[in-house]
């Protein structure tokens, strides 16, 4: 194919980025530390905050995995958008279903 007319598929390509093992080690260690933290926190009675803290830590861990192990930090906008779209619809399913269940208890009006 002609070199002038770049295939559009190539336009949003980034150069393939090789993540350094140091980052992997750091992230892996951070994940293990966070696991220990979340287990530790679960032994402290925080009342309503126990689930919140546990889920917050889980989200942080998931974000770390997605960004570094799954290379999203170094990926194209398209990949980032894909991840966001998935999370959006997932949260849509959960939140809108939950909204029905929770608001049923509010009574008629």
């Amino acid at each position, binding site marked *: 194919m*002609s070199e002038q007319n770049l295939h*559009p598929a190539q336009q949003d390509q980034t150069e393939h980025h090789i993540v350094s093992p140091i980052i992997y080690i750091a992230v892996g260690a951070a994940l293990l530390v966070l696991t220990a933290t979340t287990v530790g926190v679960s032994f402290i009675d925080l009342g309503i905050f126990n689930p919140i803290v546990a889920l917050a830590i889980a989200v942080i861990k998931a974000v770390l995995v997605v960004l570094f192990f799954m290379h999203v930090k170094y990926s194209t906008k398209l990949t980032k958008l894909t991840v966001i779209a998935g999370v959006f619809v997932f949260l849509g399913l959960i939140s809108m279903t939950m*909204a*029905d269940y929770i608001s049923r208890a509010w009574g008629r009006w």
Partner: protein
Amino acid sequence: MSAATIVVLPDQSTARIPKMNFITRENGLLSWLLTGDHKRIATLYLISITFFFFIGGALAGLIRLELLTPQTDLVAADTYNKLFTMHGVIMIFFFLVPSVPATLGNFLIPMMVGAKDLALPKVNLLSWYLYIIAGIMAIYTMAAGGVDTGWTFTTPLSTHYLNTHVISTGLAIFVAGFSSIFTGLNFIVTIHKMRCPGMTWFRLPLFVWSNYAASILMVLGTPVLAITLVLIVLERTVGIGVFDPAKGGDPLLFQHLFWFYSHPAVYIMILPGMGVISEVVSTFSRKRVFGYTAVAFSSVAIAVFGFFVWAHHMFIMGISNYAVLVFSLLTMLVAVPSAIKIFNWAFTLYKGSITFETPMLYAFGFMGLFTIGGMTGVFLGASGTDIHLTETYFIVAHFHFVMVGGMLMAFLAGIHFWWPKWTGRMYPEKISQLAAVVTFIGFNLTFFPQFILGTLGMPRRYAAYPPEFQILNVFSTAGATILGIGYLLPVLYLTWSLKYGAIAGNNPWQATGLEWQTQSPPLTENFLEIPIMDHEAYDYEWLERMQQKEVASVG
């Protein structure tokens, strides 16, 4: 009809179907069954979905015959229940969902974006095999005695109160679901990554846009149905209780999860059809689609909003009032993009140069019937009128106007439009126009009386009904007979045309899409060399310039 036509066929005395094309490339059954070529897979799909369409159609015929009289005289109530269940399952999961995407989409999207094939040919083939496996399971279910849950599988009826083949049907739909996930995934990847040079997003034909929107729904919606069906199967086999009120589960949770897929599924079915209409209307009025961007974005808007309206199927089931408000409002919002599309298509005709070939007739039919179907959807989306009209024949008529009047019309428009590209041959024009008119009349006669029946309160899924509803049911059954003829005709003359049709040449309709700039039937690689898109979509002036250049160079 006007004698004026845009059809330009090559000189029939010298014209030949190109020796080398995707059909003749390889021979033998294996070369078809192991193919990676999107056009061959599309052909396989076309044959399979036509088969299932006529099974579903036969079931519909039996349903209509039974409803000719108020009593259960043709079949017993339980047989009737199996008939409408299998009709729903087959028509929805084995015809409507794969209809335009898996056949026309599969055939056209790579060509429209200027690629040699879909991004993942093997996954594409896998998707067809999954479809076939699912189809075999569905046929097994029918042969083994059928299933009578209704296609909606309402719990706890489907899990604890019926003794028919719910599990095999559930698994069949599960497998068919993955077939559609893989098709959708393949389309999204192809549209993002396989566009030819110069093919920017806003140069894509609208058919590609609408299939893209439908694919998003397939990829994100179908898995929820899959897990729901797994839970149904587990509920029946192990008795898990998540949907069983006796064990503390909640049948409404099933409704939520089921409709989270099954409402977007409606858009999965209709969006690709809308894409077909955009192509056809533009081509036969020789004019760029009015407000290209609005039509393109309205597809995406339907896809996005379409995810968040599912609970309007549950207004009378006791969901919270607040949820009713939110879902009703969102339903109203999702109706707007459809209205935009209708008016944009209508205005595409404005100052065009219109001809009335068969695809255009089907497209006109679509526009009229889809307007009715869409507007009656608003009746059901408004929470108040929904109370009276839901679960009656009104809703049956509504979704048949959208699915049959809309989608099937669009499918037939598309098949007639791209048939010359697919096979290299034309079909007889007069008889196909007749078929389009017959279909339109038959359709209206079948389904319009059902709106009145629904308003009267006749419930859906009734094998027997009060005698005062009979006269309208007789109209409906009579219409169904005409409709049946309307659907049989294309099968006959299209099959005939395979051998005897006139040679179509590359571009019989003088259309602008990239798919028309290659030979008919296309090469396995679609194009001799990768095309470069140097003009906007639906640029008829570009087409003219190019043709003049060709004439000049030949001359």
